[in-house]
């Protein structure tokens, strides 16, 4: 079985973002970029499945300009067998991403597709569900636990009401949540080895997919700031203040 893992290049988790003065977007110049943390967890899970002998090949796929090759190389250093870059403008909306993934699926015929449950830049949480719809296959979103047996995946999903377990026939799309695993650290020799692993570059044209970025992002602004409030000295003052404001 092949496993396809989606990887998105995003502003690093620890960076405090800056909005461009003209409101046209978020400033990414000279900012540290990383693999979307949820995608890293997806890749870790794929590697563990392969290491357990239940898959032969793990392929990392990213859509974006050549800068995303850096994240694909990191994925190869973590242990993926090969990489595919679908050349595209850095910012694509989920429907186009899902359509491009669908074409990669048609070429590669994976038994499982693992994606992060959302990217920490756009916070859309759409691509996995859209891909499953286009593929007419099962989706198991927000996975915090999963196991494979024969052609069936049992997935525990983190939902608002608690932990929901479902069973899906493979092939399927699974989107992963934070508590699924802890991704491994990349070691220096692996970075060297990754340079020799295959990284194929395709274009959206090759895949016959046109860009449909029809939701326009007009203007960005920082969120309203919460003013720092008052400090109280002890529990008695705190309770008095709460009563005073009619909160308890």
């Amino acid at each position, binding site marked *: 079985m092949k496993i396809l893992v989606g990887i998105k290049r995003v502003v690093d988790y620890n960076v405090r973002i800056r909005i461009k003065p003209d409101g046209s977007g978020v400033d990414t110049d000279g900012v540290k970029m990383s693999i979307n943390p949820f995608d890293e967890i997806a890749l870790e899970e794929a590697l563990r499945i392969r290491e357990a002998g239940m898959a032969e090949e793990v392929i990392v796929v990213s859509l974006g300009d050549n800068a995303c090759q850096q994240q694909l190389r990191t994925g190869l250093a973590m242990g993926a067998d090969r990489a595919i870059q679908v050349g595209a403008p850095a910012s694509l909306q*989920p*429907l186009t991403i899902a359509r491009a993934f669908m074409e990669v699926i048609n070429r590669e015929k994976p038994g499982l597709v693992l994606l992060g449950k959302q990217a920490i830049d756009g916070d859309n949480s759409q691509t996995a569900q859209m891909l499953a719809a286009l593929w007419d296959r099962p989706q198991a979103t927000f996975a915090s636990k999963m196991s494979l047996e024969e052609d069936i995946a049992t997935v525990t999903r983190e939902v*608002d009401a608690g932990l929901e377990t479902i069973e899906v026939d493979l092939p399927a799309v699974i989107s992963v949540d934070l508590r699924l695993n802890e991704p491994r650290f990349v070691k220096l020799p692996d970075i060297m080895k990754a340079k020799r692993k295959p990284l194929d570059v395709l274009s959206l044209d090759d895949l016959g997919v046109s860009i449909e970025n029809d939701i326009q*992002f007009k*203007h960005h602004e*920082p969120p309203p700031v919460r003013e720092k409030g008052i400090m109280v000295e002890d529990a008695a003052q705190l309770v008095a203040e709460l009563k005073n404001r009619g909160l308890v």
Partner: protein
Amino acid sequence: MSRTLIIAEHDGKELNPSTAKCARCATAIGSEFDIVVLGSDTTNIAAQAAAIDGTQTVINISAGHLENPLAVNHAAEVVAMADGYSHILGPSTTFGRDLMPRIAALLGVNQVSDISSVSGSHQFKRPIYAGNAIVDVEAPEGVTLVATVRTASWKSAGDNGNAGVEDREASAAPSNHTRYIDLQSGDTERPDLQTANRVVSGGRALASKENFDLIYSLADLIGAGAGASRAAVDAGYVPNDMQVGQTGKIISPDLYMAFGISGAIQHVTGIKDAGTIVAINKDAEAPIFEIADIGLAADLFTVIPEMKQLLG
């Protein structure tokens, strides 16, 4: 004339308040709206939906394969009835986030996630980057607009409506490739986190599952829901359904009290819309004090018992 279809969220017994929040959003869009209830044996839930102010018609589709909220079956049913609707709305809860993109892709349209305010029938504001940027988006007219409504940003519509309920047969074929097994829920008598007026939350500083009884006892004393930071969930002190933050629940209670929570940006994302934020933390430098309306730099293990005495 625009017409909106709202997908009702429910647990088989009660309508989730997220549905009345979507109704408020539909009204802001300036659209008449219907509500579809998908499930099995949902007569009572349809009646609750019919009481939401402004509802035109409740469409009640009851079938065995719709009993559990599997996106594959629910999406197929919504797509089969989508004709004639300009907008299709669902909540930004895990239910809506799972379902709505599947509907959008089947309809061949992009989706707007997390509408936090409405400036026109196709113009919205929504947060990105964990709420660190608010963006004005404009969706194309002439195609169905599929969107999720950020529930923490909206008040519920009133419940004095009296809409008609139309029972319909399911029209899409059930899928057999996805099977529901079960739901493990931290059953609690406490108010639901996402709708509670008051929430008492604990962090890693609680240091054990047993110590969370302190949080629960204070919550129960003031009729509050109980929440937690990601660190407390990761440490196994509390179940995942208590997590507040970017990857947990985004909530907007009138009062939010954070005990022993440092205030990582991902946690703050989940409470930004709260009325009053109270922070109690031993570390006077904890970032949570930057956004707290009332702060107390002290040990929660002494503060909570004192508070209970003063409030009891």
